């Protein structure tokens, strides 16, 4: 299983044609306490870089962009019910949604963990 990162601080775990997407621990620490999450509908077709989800802290709302094109096949209702999960386990239980990818060549522009660490250093 491969984990990749975007410069917008999302992570993707790739298993076959499906990418599981969340925000990084760095992103949650910058956002502060998450109080609301809005997820895309299952079945929605997303284009790469399209606003796909919303994560809100006490102070502000931030978009989560689709890091890759495809169809939303599953969303994580646990984080809409308990938004604080995004702060406590951003890289694990607090995944946002899963996309069935339509163009895996789009993965080419993403970073591996070492490159992402350098990006946020």
């Amino acid at each position, binding site marked *: 299983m491969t984990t990749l990162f975007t410069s917008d601080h999302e992570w993707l775990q790739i298993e076959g044609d499906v990418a599981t997407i969340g925000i990084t621990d760095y992103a949650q620490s910058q956002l*502060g*306490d998450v*109080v*609301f999450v*809005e997820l895309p509908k299952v079945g929605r077709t997303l284009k790469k870089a399209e606003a796909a989800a*919303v994560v*809100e*802290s*006490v*102070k*502000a*709302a931030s978009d989560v962009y689709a890091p890759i094109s495809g169809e939303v096949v599953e969303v994580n209702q646990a984080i*809409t019910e308990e938004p604080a999960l995004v702060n406590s386990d951003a890289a694990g239980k607090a995944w946002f949604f899963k996309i069935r990818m339509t163009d895996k060549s789009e993965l080419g522009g993403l970073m591996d963990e070492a490159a992402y660490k350098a990006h946020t250093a």
Partner: protein
Amino acid sequence: MLGRDDLLPLKKTPLHGLHVSLGARMVPFAGYDMPVQYPPGVLREHLHTRGSAGLFDVSHMGQIALTAKSGRVEDAAAALEALVPQDIRGLPRGRQRYAQFTNADGGILDDLMVVNCGWYLFVVVNAACKDADEAHLRAHLSDTCVIEPLADRALIALQGPKAEAVLAKFCAEAPAMRFMDAGPRKVMGLDCIVSRSGYTGEDGFEISVPAGHAEELARALLAEADVLPIGLGARDSLRLEAGLCLYGHDIDATTTPVEAALEWSVQKVRRPGGARAGGFLGAERILAQFGAGAPRRRVGLRPEGRAPVREGANLFADEAASEPVGKVTSGGFGPTLNAPVAMGYLPSALAAAGTQVFAEVRGQRLALRVAATPFVKNTYKR
């Protein structure tokens, strides 16, 4: 496009070094480099203030001494009444009052606090407006008053249910003060001006302290186990839950005190039929609205769902209406309520508590109900 303020270096309050040493995240606010939050974050800072005590640096606000050339505070009070719709002549020595500077159209130039200090009036204004306020005071009151900005003073707010017990250790007179009592007091031996007030909805104090001793006092207060430093992020969520206006957002030069639902702050003596009715800038329009009502009202709003509805969201009378009838002027998440809260303007016909309206958020219409403010009951020691 850059505004004028973006081209100037950010100013620092006397507590700037303290904020940085405490690990604050600093942001530009009203021309100052200010702490938006400390390591615990907005949510914990907010809840700590409601449950214990929070210390806020509000030194960016303007502090002005208004002294009559005659030497009589009554003359300074009479002069100031030309610029605010409040009863200042009737403000007793040692008391504080909330007021607004109005313009000739009845709009609000700024909101402020006025203290009768015995021989002068001590005025606290918003940071973003302080230069304009000072110029406004000079333009209208220079004949009769001396206007002295107190640039060498910091302002520290201590807010929350433990504020009284904490401040009592540094100022023996603090517990005897009631809500809106104010005046010169010794705090830690320093010559301060203390008021029992604030902008969080909690009991608490604001302490004007000589700038050179501000860090010493702040560190002494922070050394108390009950006190945490609180940033501007939580200051905003606290005042929003308390239903208090933020100048430039909930009130501005286009909103009158009646439209802003601030009639409570205008004493009877200056309303229609009062002994000193009118006599301030914009009185014609404001007094007319006291009689006939205003076309729109500032209201509290409770979103029915979990999604925060933020400043700028258009408000609609029903789910399908095409034309907005109002706008949200402040909105976010209320940590004490554990729910989203907002305020905004609606036509008076839609301003009754319980009325359902809709806000447009990311292309969707979300239901809200008009609600009484404060959203969180205040705990002032009256």
